[in-house]
């Protein structure tokens, strides 16, 4: 062995916490994403590379933090996030009719983004704490932990983030072993309360759902996004129109083509083959994540890994469903592919945590 400070040793230490399998899958996804972005909006490529750099640093740091240390962050992060959400509701900036941002004077932050990680962290920590004794009371309290921030986010309004946070929390509760009876009851109760929920929705949220049901009713207004993205997907065919040749993309028929609707670009230019490749990459990513969760030593680690993995799935499902016209338009990006720094950092924080859990799978046993 050479010196501890030799470049080789430094590199080994640097990459040690990184799970090669996970990194390979994510790397393939990123390569694919950059290829699509280069067609959708090539002038944003440099910025996205910088975003990516930041996100990878965040991942590397997260991968280094052992799960036990992470647990200590759960409560302060959750409480802090909740307070910030209350602050947003009281003093937040309004942009495009929604109160989502908090102006700290030197920067603007979007506290709901914190909740995407803070929520599973908090619930996983909570279930770990009460591991020995999980009664219905604990589940009710967990539901409250989940409901408060979700309600605050939904009222901003930010339906996309609310769904993701709700899903993140729900996955934890589900994986923690909530009884099927309760789940079935919740499901029926949820269906029964749909009319009530409908009345609580904002007009724009209702419109989005109505638009999904009949986009052609308003082809130039609310239905425009769905119609045009569906045309893009359908016209792509099996092989796609080829990179840079998507007419829907390049003639600006696809709105938000570098962010939420980037899947329409991918679909149009790479066709069914390209879509299947993307689905396969996501399936591999999710499979690897679930494997990590299954091998995790503590309840906290399992729940955390399971929830993060299923959140990746939720991102992908909601986004692709929206672009292909089967789910309503909500602001959910295509994970690892859509342009934008915030989402990328959050996603890679999740990947980092997964890596850390995988690295530390044996520690407790030892």
């Amino acid at each position, binding site marked *: 062995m050479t010196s501890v400070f030799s470049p080789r040793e430094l590199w080994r230490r640097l990459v040690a916490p990184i799970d090669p399998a996970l990194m390979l899958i994510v790397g393939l996804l990123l390569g694919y994403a950059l290829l699509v972005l280069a067609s959708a909006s090539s002038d944003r490529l440099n910025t996205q590379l910088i975003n990516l750099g930041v996100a990878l640093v965040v991942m590397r740091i997260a991968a280094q933090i052992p799960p036990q240390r992470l647990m200590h962050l759960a409560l302060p992060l959750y409480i802090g996030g909740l307070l910030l959400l209350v602050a947003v509701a009281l003093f937040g900036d309004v942009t495009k009719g929604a109160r989502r941002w908090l102006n700290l004077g030197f920067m603007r932050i979007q506290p709901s983004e914190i909740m995407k990680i803070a929520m599973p962290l908090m619930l996983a920590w909570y279930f770990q704490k009460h591991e020995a004794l999980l*009664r*219905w009371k604990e589940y009710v309290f967990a539901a409250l932990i989940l409901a408060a921030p979700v309600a605050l986010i939904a009222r901003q309004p930010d339906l996309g983030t609310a769904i993701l946070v709700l899903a993140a929390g729900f996955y934890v509760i*589900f994986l923690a*072993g909530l009884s099927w009876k309760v789940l079935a009851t919740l499901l029926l109760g949820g269906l029964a309360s749909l009319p009530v929920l409908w009345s609580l929705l904002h007009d724009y949220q209702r419109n989005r759902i109505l638009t999904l049901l009949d986009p052609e009713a308003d082809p130039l207004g609310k239905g425009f996004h769905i119609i045009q993205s569906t045309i893009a997907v*359908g016209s792509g065919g099996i092989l796609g129109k080829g990179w840079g040749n998507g007419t829907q993309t390049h*003639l*600006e*028929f696809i709105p938000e083509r570098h962010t939420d609707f980037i899947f329409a670009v991918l679909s149009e230019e790479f066709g069914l083959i390209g879509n299947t490749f993307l689905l396969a990459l996501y399936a591999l990513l999710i499979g690897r994540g679930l494997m990590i969760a299954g091998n995790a030593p503590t309840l906290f680690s*399992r729940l955390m890994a*399971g929830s993060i993995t299923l959140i990746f799935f939720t991102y992908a499902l909601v986004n692709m469903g929206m672009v292909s016209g089967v789910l309503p338009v909500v602001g959910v990006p295509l994970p690892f592919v859509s342009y934008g720094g915030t989402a990328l950092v959050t996603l890679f924080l999740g990947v980092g945590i997964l890596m850390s859990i995988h690295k530390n799978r044996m520690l407790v046993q030892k």
Partner: protein
Amino acid sequence: MHPAEFRNPEQDLQRFQRRLAIAGGLVLFAFALLFARFFWLQVVQHEYFRTRAEDNRISLVPVVPNRGLIVDRAGMVLARNYSAYTLEITPGKVADLEAAINELAKIVDIQPKDRKRFRRLLEESKNFESLPIRTRLTDQEVARFIAQRFRFPGVDIKARLFRQYPYGDLASHAIGYIGRVNDRDLEAIEKRDAEDNYRGTDHFGKTGLEQKYEFDLHGQTGFEQVEVDSGGRAVRVLARTAPVPGDNLVLTLDMKLQQVVEKAFGARRGALVAIDPSTGGVLALVSMPGYDPNLFVDGIASQDWDVLNTSEDKPMVNRALNGAYPPGSTFKPFMALGALELGKRTPQQTISDPGFFNFGGHLFRDDKKGGHGLVDMYKSIVHSCDTYYYVLANDMGIDNISNFMRQLGFGQRTGIDIEGESEGVLPSQEWKRKRFRKPEQQKWYAGETISIGIGQGYNAYTPIQLAQATAAVANDGVMYRPHLVRHIENIRTGERRVIEPQPLRVLPLKPANVEVIKQAMVGVNKEGTGARAFAGAEYVSAGKTGTAQVYSLKGEKYVAGKVKERLRDHALFIAFAPADRPKIALAVLVENGGFGAQSAAPIARQVLDYYLLGKLPKEPAPADDEVDEDD
């Protein structure tokens, strides 16, 4: 309360892994559903979406052909096209028009009159047309808009061809003008089954030659297959069928002559039609005052329209074709010709003129107090003796008069190639029966025939009818349809469609009779009422003065200075020259010009001087106050 449940870690792990497996299954199931959706869209429905994407992308854009030019007989361009940038809005693509226009006004100068015009166009148009908010943008304005056009979906700059009439109001009534297509024009287009060819065309001939020859001038619309972006803006051209430019009109009109006439009129109102008697080609078609046809091309501004429409001078009326005036004494040569042809008079037969004609106790006065003494046909024309024609009219009877005059074209449209010509009134017993309702009005009274003889009474003819009749006499009874277009020229092949002179009819006139009338008309300009105006002319011309009453004075003698200008008599003059081989025949009318010899004859003199000798007059034709009132 449930008792506390102590847990078995091994069992917990198994349960957790079971749940993970269920979740994994759900993931696969959801992805399978997504794949099914992709398969549905991209394989099963692919053809449908491919077509929709193509429809999105490709738009068939008509390419409007260049409109044909209008040039006079010497090649002077009277109507041409120039290219300019317009700022256009497609109202269907703009949610809030008012706001968009206000924003545009910050980069491009938009005046209240532009907004007004835009609103009017908006009312008249269909929603998917793009309408100009500003025309003739400057280069700076174009640059400023291009830089910001992403802010204005549904707004774009277009290079359009504009019609321009370089001579402004000169010959405006003959050339006419184009304006934006309206519902009536659309009907005309549909009637000709030309909708396809007019896709993209937004202007249409409204009056004059522009209207009559619209479908020759228009040309064949081309098409471009254009790739467009979501804002409907053209990105690139995929295929193109070139337009075929419209045909040029080459006129019989002599623009320099037209200029001479309009100058000769000065500020006076009236009309002049000059015809080449041997072809019917119109050499000058003047209606004064004219108007600037350029005002109409982009849609006339309302204040301009108000001025034109409310003016007492009625500049929009084409007096040459639509003004119907009593011909006054210019009618006499035709009366005399009729008398000869019908055998009612011989040239030598004389009457004795006491200065009036007594018909059943009613005195019809002659202009000359005390009368002209013994009057034969020559003298009756040269000195314009009224009494001769009172008696003649009475002898001929109304139906003989109208039957003869009808052959000369009086009271009928001449068929000139301009729409909307008036018929005028050729009085007859039948006409009166049709014209009036009450039985006592429908009856023709013999006394009414008397004043018909001197061109008054119910007589009302357009200046072009008068010119046509004059040309008929000059051409010994061979009548041509008056026309303004000499040939229509295809500018690409150079092929010419000549508008052949169309003989309307050959009147069976006895040459000797025609000669008598011609000689008498020569006498008018030599020693009669036209002599002053034609003193010193280097050619032999034939003419006849006339005065049409506007205001009937009961018993009083008409004194020009005593009546208001607008109630003064109209002055008329007909002429042709050279008398032996006429190259030009004309009729002039000066509204409220007083006696024909006074203001109409000097205009005719300037016209003939220019046309026959190339002499340009130095000033408007004089109004001769010294002339004797023997008219």
